[in-house]
């Protein structure tokens, strides 16, 4: 499912039998909304092109997104966006919030989290995300990026990740970590597993051989190895389970 348009806006029926989003309706909403989303760094324009229709252009530092208004309307239709002015405005604002992360934003506000490395959801790796409201958008370094700059951004994001406030709940011998607003941030604590062990100990649970069960975008579960095996082994859902000392060696996405 395409979540760039804010998946909660679409009901099941609307997704199964979507009502077409008209280009003219989208244009009308965009004309009113886009100027209000602009910042000193972010420019949002609708460029009229003869013969090929209008193009939405998002420019922010080194990142640029260009998409035909008709294609955007088509994608919104497929995602089941409500075909009302409010529905389209909500979807358009969400789409802008999902725009690529700039190098400057990653450098100054990036947070290290664990995310899936493959489509089959069998391996996880570190990546830098930037929070925009209830959304965390991944940063992808440009191909020509200086390796030292990328390393610095990742190191700063790791340091920042340790300070993300998370909810910790003990369910018997299992410690569950979650973020109240942005689910993917739940894994940010894993940059400092020894701090997690200390915080878990403060709840009355001792877990020196802590095993972590990771399903990116879901709460992180920590438990002794046998209990973690029982937890993850009996679920049909994708997860990666590993002893905490191996976290630091996970690759970057």
């Amino acid at each position, binding site marked *: 499912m395409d979540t760039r348009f804010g998946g909660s806006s679409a009901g099941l029926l609307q997704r199964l039998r979507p009502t077409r989003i008209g280009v003219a309706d989208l244009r009308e909403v965009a004309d009113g909304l886009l100027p209000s989303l602009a910042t000193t760094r972010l420019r949002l324009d609708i460029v009229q092109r003869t013969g090929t229709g209008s193009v939405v252009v998002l420019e922010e530092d080194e990142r640029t997104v260009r998409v035909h208004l008709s294609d955007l309307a088509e994608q919104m239709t497929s995602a089941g966006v409500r075909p009302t002015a409010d529905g389209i405005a909500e979807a358009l604002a969400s789409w802008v919030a999902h725009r690529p992360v700039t190098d400057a934003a990653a450098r100054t506000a990036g947070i290290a989290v664990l995310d899936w490395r493959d489509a089959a959801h069998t391996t996880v790796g570190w990546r830098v995300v930037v929070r925009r409201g209830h959304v965390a958008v991944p940063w992808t370094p440009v191909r020509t990026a200086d390796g030292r700059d990328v390393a610095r951004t990742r190191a700063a994001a790791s340091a920042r990740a340790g300070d993300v406030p998370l909810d910790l*709940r003990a*369910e*018997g*011998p*299992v410690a*569950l970590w*979650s973020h109240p607003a942005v689910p993917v941030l739940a894994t940010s604590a894993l940059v400092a597993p020894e701090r997690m062990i200390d915080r878990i100990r403060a709840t009355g649970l001792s877990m020196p051989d802590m095993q972590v*069960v990771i*399903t990116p975008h*879901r*709460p992180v*579960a920590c*438990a*002794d*190895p*046998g*209990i973690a*095996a*029982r*937890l993850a*082994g*009996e*679920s*049909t*859902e994708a*997860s990666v*389970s590993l002893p905490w000392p191996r976290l630091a060696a996970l690759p970057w996405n």
Partner: protein
Amino acid sequence: MSALPSDGHSAQILVPHWLAEDDRALLATVVRQALAGGEVHPVGVIHLEDVLTELHVAAARDAVWPTSAARVRKATGWDDDVLPVRLSAAELASLLSLTGLPEELSALLGGGTTP
């Protein structure tokens, strides 16, 4: 001490028993009382302790991956507090051998997997 496997691979087949919150709370109380009574065989003690663990793990499993149980609940019409509690044959046998096990729990655990 635990009968749970620690090598990351499940050495035993665990069968789900779908229990509502009240049933799980009652089951935990019965097991704790049996363990406190000191009359359970040492091997049975291990299995019963693992049952207590599973009651927590079942809730944790649902917190991390709520979708699959929710799908079953939707298909069956069961209430939102019904969760799969996954027990091995040995754990189940230890439970069913408890003299203090209420009849309704015995029926839920031994007479099928529906709440």
